[in-house]
């Protein structure tokens, strides 16, 4: 299925922004078509590098979507919206962000076996408390795809480790898929994904660095994978709470994901993550170009960015 996302209404200034990106990245015309990554062997170095890039995108894509409905929370200090660093499309939405910004948004991204994006979502649990990003994505997916039963080879990117409810949905609906994450949550009980129900498996992204030839570049360009990932991975981190406190700063007695969400460091990294989807380093550019994957990657990122700025909760393509 190839949706005509060219019909999505996007303001002219945002299209100009996209064209500028095209010139910066690859000097080719945007096709506005969802693209697959044919020829990339699952599990290869290139595969994991691309998964890391999409994970970076999925995490950063929370940024323009702070619309979970909280009317009380305030943006953290050092708010990127005030720094003029965001593109025109984001500025367009500025009026929506501020009243709703609560720092509790999480996003999810479903990729097919060729890493073509199939669905994207963001947490809107201030509107419906079950609408964590993962569950919202699955409910949206089910409306158009009620029969599909096997998701072997599919990748569900959930930057925050899925909770009990979302784990259950993923294991029930996206049977056999791999769930990639990098930020842990100290409040999680035992979940269906802990037991690989329906052969659905979780993968901690930083564990995959050793599979990437460009691991040092990925670590350098996307330092939050290590910084937020390793520090919050409590399965082998006995000092999780101490590490989290260092990351969050301040003197709060209680520390957890909410404090991390609302910390300045988190927001700073998130902003850099969103920005970094538009600028690949020369090493990554060279590698993706050589492998013939740059165009697919850029097309998908453009398409996703356009959809995200045009839709509210979830996108199923």
């Amino acid at each position, binding site marked *: 299925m190839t949706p005509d996302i060219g019909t999505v209404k996007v303001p002219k200034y945002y299209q100009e922004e996209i064209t500028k990106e095209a010139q910066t990245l690859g000097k080719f015309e945007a096709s506005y078509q969802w693209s697959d990554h044919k020829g990339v062997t699952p599990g290869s170095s290139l595969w994991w590098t691309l998964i890391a890039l999409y994970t970076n995108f999925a995490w950063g894509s929370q940024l323009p979507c702070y619309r979970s409905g909280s009317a009380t929370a305030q943006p953290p200090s050092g708010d990127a919206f005030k720094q003029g660093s965001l593109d025109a499309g984001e500025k367009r939405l500025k009026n929506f962000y501020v009243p709703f910004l609560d720092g509790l948004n999480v996003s999810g991204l479903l990729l097919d076996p060729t890493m073509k994006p199939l669905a994207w979502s963001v947490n809107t649990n201030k*509107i419906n408390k079950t609408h964590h990003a993962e569950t919202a994505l*699955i409910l949206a997916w089910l409306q158009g795809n009620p029969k599909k039963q096997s998701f072997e080879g599919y990748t569900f990117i959930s930057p925050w480790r899925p909770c009990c409810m979302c784990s259950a949905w993923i294991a*029930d609906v996206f049977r056999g898929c791999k769930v990639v994450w990098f930020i842990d949550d100290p409040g999680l*009980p035992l979940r*269906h994904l*802990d037991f690989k129900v329906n052969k659905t498996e979780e993968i901690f992204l930083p564990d995959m660095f050793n599979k990437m030839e460009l691991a040092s570049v990925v670590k350098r360009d996307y330092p939050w994978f290590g910084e937020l990932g390793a520090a919050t991975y409590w*399965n082998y981190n*006995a000092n*999780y709470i101490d590490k989290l406190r260092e990351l969050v700063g301040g003197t709060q007695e209680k520390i957890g994901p909410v404090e991390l969400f609302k910390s300045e460091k988190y927001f700073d990294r998130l902003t850099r993550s969103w920005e970094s989807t538009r600028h690949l380093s020369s090493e990554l550019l060279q590698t993706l170009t050589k492998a013939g994957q740059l165009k697919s990657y850029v097309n998908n990122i453009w398409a996703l960015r356009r959809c995200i700025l045009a839709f509210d909760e979830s996108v199923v393509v």
Partner: protein
Amino acid sequence: MARVKQELEAVFKTQGKSLFPTVVCKYNGKTVTCISHGYVDPKGKSEYLAAFGDTIPSLSVLLNLHSQKGGGIELGDIKDADDENCYIAVCGYPPTISDFGMAYRNNMRFVLDLAKGEFWRVNQNTPDTPNERVALLEEEKAKGHKILDAEWEAGGKDFPWYRTICTEFLGSRSS
């Protein structure tokens, strides 16, 4: 309990089991109150958001509707939910994995399957520290527990609401 019986009858007998009926109840330690019920149209024209494959998680979709804020049918959050202060789900079909996930999110401690006369305790195992969670996980793995044992503990305790509901609707089959 009379109202529960009435509500359940309306759903399970009038609508029929083929519609995968579900009832959401609240238990306060003494009485069970029926809060709502739902079912899925067998032709697939469901009033709910989701139906898939050969399982129709009507509890999940019912809870999804109950979780929508501002619609006037939201399930109130129960502070410090426990065995005697909680929501209970009654299903006319074997509950799905997603049903358990949604039940957890909505302060349910128990899910009943009236089709089989069984019930599960919804896992409330939320440790305070990461090390506790690691220990628990290792412990469960060491026992070789499968998900239904570890995550959703099958019931054995004689809860008064369970006996009442099952006796009223299933007679000697589940007593």
